């Protein structure tokens, strides 16, 4: 099969993959007002009561939010350093981090996590769940 046939077929396959993936992403998008932490649903205000507010310095300036360290400790995790924590976004994006990183971060009112000394790729937006592994 020559290039004259392969190239258009490849392009059509790629567009098909792109379209199907787009439809799938929209179908699995999670829309909710609460955040699941270790299997329990919480509103942001409840999380603020549990974890308290903390302000950290990031490359984008000061950010205030729920202290993730105090939040995890307050929900009854015995050995916080023994676990890994997966932060999940509404669109499927997720990052798994160790306790040493998690404890430095905050969860803002806009449902985004911030960490002072990490690449922005770890600042998950539209957080819907913090899973304890």
């Amino acid at each position, binding site marked *: 099969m020559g290039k004259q046939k392969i*190239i*258009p077929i490849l392009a059509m396959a*790629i567009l098909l*993959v*792109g379209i199907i993936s787009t439809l799938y992403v929209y179908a699995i998008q999670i829309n909710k007002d609460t955040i699941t932490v270790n299997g329990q649903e919480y509103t942001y205000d409840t999380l603020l009561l549990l974890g308290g507010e903390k302000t950290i310095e990031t490359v984008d300036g000061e950010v205030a939010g729920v202290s993730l360290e105090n939040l995890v400790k307050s929900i009854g995790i015995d050995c916080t350093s023994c676990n890994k924590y997966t932060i999940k976004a509404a669109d499927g994006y*997720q*990052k798994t981090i160790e306790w040493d990183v998690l404890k430095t971060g905050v969860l803002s009112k806009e449902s985004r996590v911030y960490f002072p000394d990490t690449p*922005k790729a770890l600042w998950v937006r539209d957080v819907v769940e913090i899973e304890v592994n």
Partner: protein
Amino acid sequence: MDKRLIAGVLVFGSLWGFSEVIIGTGLQNANLPYGAIMTGCFAISFLVLSRMIFRRPGMQLGMGVVAGGLRIFNPFVGCHLCSAIAIMAEAAIFEVIWYKMSSDFSDLKTITLQSSMGVATAYLVYVGGYVTTQILTPIVGGVGFYLENLIIFMPRILASGLLPAILGAAVLPVILQVRKLDFTLKDRLYYPTALGLTLLCWVGVIGFSVILG
């Protein structure tokens, strides 16, 4: 190595890096899909134009190194090395895709073939760069790479490549029309022009980074 080729690598690589940093930042600030536009329009344009003018496989990889060097001054996702390597990965992917393409572009005679090649190039370059960033950023950031995180996010990555693919479909036929124009610079103008453009790009990017930072 041919001096004109080295100058070409420097110029086109610098222009690519310059557009990534300056124009990309502007698009991001305007809340536009800057990644898709940068790859589907600018990256494809520079890569294909340089291939058209110099007809030398491997040159685009050199351009990626130069553009990556500029990206270090203004990284996205806050990771200098990741940004640079992602651009180099995009250039490497382009080289692989265009490896068997004839140097006179006679394989792309029709608009259909040109658009199809634009789709394939833009999509694979964009998705490849995205995946590279997703792998490298947590590693370089010291938080570890978890394959399951990438696998779960793959549908989103594959979906995000659709816009660059559509842009590439439109851009590549337009770029290939440039073949019909005759741009020739004499040597006494070529090297000063190349040097001037390269310096302008680097000074612009470094100055921009200093102002921001």
